């Protein structure tokens, strides 16, 4: 009992109430994140419907293999994150550290693949504002599909801003994971105190969900058949 008492802050009746308040608070924050990314998704929906041919032609330029691989990598990192919560709940310190480190590793693989994609777009001169001037086959591709270049540029504005915002959330997530690993190594988490792992997990899974929507919207629905 003394351990249980120590884990519950004095304003809460019991451990369960504290746990519910912890995750509820995180979900309220995530609701604001839904609105943040939701604004981007709404803007994307409007401009995609206004400039459909340009957005479809732009979408087909993306590398669907890299996009699908990244989706699998991110889902894998969500699995290791979920297992980390399980390890914390069942007092398995070594497995907890291993799971958190695998989550970070998969997150870094995701960002690495994203970097490869970005550098390809840079070489193809498809970065709006900095070097947007597609040439050769790419230019022919856009002309064949009657895609006006300013409209294609708008598509890539959305591509870079949405994936960039997502990548920024991943980098913040990696920072949170680093703190968790350091704390977990000291044995700070247990079945009676795993809220930080659980809450960080909610954030990590949310970032995964954003990508689950970005992948079909940006890569897949451009008429690749």
């Amino acid at each position, binding site marked *: 009992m003394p351990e249980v008492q120590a884990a519950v802050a004095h304003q809460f009746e019991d451990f*369960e109430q504290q746990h519910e308040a912890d995750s509820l608070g995180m979900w309220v924050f995530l609701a604001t994140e839904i609105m943040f990314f939701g604004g981007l998704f709404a803007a994307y*929906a409007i401009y995609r419907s206004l400039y459909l041919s340009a957005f479809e032609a732009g979408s087909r330029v993306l590398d669907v293999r890299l996009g699908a691989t990244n989706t699998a990598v991110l*889902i894998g990192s969500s699995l290791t994150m979920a297992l980390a919560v399980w390890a914390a709940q069942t007092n398995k310190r070594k497995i907890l550290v291993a799971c958190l480190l695998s989550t970070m590793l998969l997150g870094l693989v995701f960002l690495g693949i994203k970097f490869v994609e970005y550098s390809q777009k840079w070489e193809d001169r498809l970065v709006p504002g900095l070097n947007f001037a597609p040439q050769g086959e790419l230019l022919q591709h856009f002309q064949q599909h009657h895609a006006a270049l300013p409209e294609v540029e708008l598509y890539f504005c959305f591509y870079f801003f949405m994936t960039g915002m997502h990548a920024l959330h991943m980098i913040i997530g990696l920072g949170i994971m680093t703190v968790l690993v350091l704390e977990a190594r000291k044995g700070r988490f247990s079945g009676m105190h795993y809220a930080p792992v659980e809450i960080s997990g909610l954030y990590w*899974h949310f970032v995964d969900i954003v990508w689950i929507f970005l992948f079909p919207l940006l890569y897949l629905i451009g*008429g690749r058949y």
Partner: protein
Amino acid sequence: MSEHVVSPKIYVLVFLTLIALTALTTAVAFIDLGPFNTVIALAIAVCKMLLVILFFMHVRYGPNLTKIVIAAGFFWLLILISLTLGDYHTRDWTPSPSGWSSQQAQGTPAGSSASPAQASPASAAP
């Protein structure tokens, strides 16, 4: 309830389902289904989201209060997207009154007579 420990077996099952759905949505993108390509892609994405929320994020085992907060978040998103799209897609349903110099008005007969203030730079050209 909230101390519910989800077994790794369930996590792995959810993970495998998510990977299968990713493969499915990628494969479907290469088949011509007309407007249903977008519908199916979004439907699969929603299924994947629900799996992540319910199992990885433990909402299935959580209190109803959390579920209401999440539903409210998505309901707000629905308002944002549906009303914004509704605005953009109904703007040209009614003709602009004559004298309004929007881009749409210039194409319609009603808008052919531009307001004096707008017409002066154009009429100065010839």
